[in-house]
């Protein structure tokens, strides 16, 4: 069976939302007959990630966490992948980095070093949340408008769709949410500016 590796840190509000929302991907992966390495919380460390990558040679890597132009982090801000340091760890993989900015420098560097594809964002990823829902992010409908389209990349990849198609499915999902907000009388229409920003800054590098 093909192997997928997840990193799912969880140490403050933003990573907690990503952690909880990405939980359903684990069962989807198993349903689609992937062998799963789920590096969650304190297991989301560079040491464990490196060990899993070297032992299992995964085809798919799904990263969640904070990032900047040149690096993505894991639990407690530890740097996981950094341009010029260890981007070759994801060579021969399709990778989706659900984080800020890494498609600007880290992604291109990884593709140059042999990654098959790298989907991510070349700017900050912005989403809206609801006060009081932090302890139960799955019930946060405002966050859902952002996290569902962003996770469409992962769900498509786990269904064995190509990176380009997975990217396009996510773009369509963002557009659908934008259309639904602007064509309704929803008071949530202010969210469109942030959805459009994410849509425009999501990139697929091959």
């Amino acid at each position, binding site marked *: 069976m093909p192997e997928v590796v997840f990193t799912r840190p969880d140490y*403050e*509000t933003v990573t907690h939302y990503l952690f909880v929302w990405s939980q359903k991907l684990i069962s989807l992966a198993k349903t689609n007959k992937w062998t799963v390495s789920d590096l969650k919380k304190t297991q989301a460390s560079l040491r464990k990630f490196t060990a899993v990558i070297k032992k299992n040679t995964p085809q798919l890597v799904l990263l969640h966490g904070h*990032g900047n132009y040149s690096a993505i982090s894991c639990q407690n801000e530890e740097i996981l992948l950094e341009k010029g340091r260890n981007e070759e760890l994801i060579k021969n993989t399709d990778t989706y980095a659900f*984080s800020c900015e890494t498609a600007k420098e880290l992604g291109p560097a990884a593709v140059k070093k042999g990654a098959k594809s790298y989907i991510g964002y070349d700017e900050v990823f*912005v989403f*809206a*949340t609801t006060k*009081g829902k932090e302890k139960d992010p799955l019930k946060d409908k405002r966050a859902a408008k952002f996290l569902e389209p962003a996770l469409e990349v992962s769900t498509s990849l786990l269904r064995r769709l190509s990176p380009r198609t997975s990217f396009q499915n996510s773009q369509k999902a963002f557009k659908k949410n934008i259309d639904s907000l602007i064509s309704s009388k929803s008071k949530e229409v202010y969210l*469109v500016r942030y959805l*459009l920003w994410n849509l425009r800054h999501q990139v697929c590098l091959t």
Partner: protein
Amino acid sequence: MRTKDKIIQLILARLDVLPPDAKIAIVGFGTYDKHELKKHVRKDDDIGKKIIEIELDYLKSLKKGVFYA
């Protein structure tokens, strides 16, 4: 009033439409309600600059008719 000050006033007005129970999470920075966002915009720090960039990008999109394409 300088152009920069006019832009800041415009962005502050636009942030006012956020409901009181909404927070904006900027992955890599943190989560902020509208009052916190407005403070950052007034300070013109990294978060404030990013919020201004997002708002101006959106307004330029409206001008280009992105929703009618």
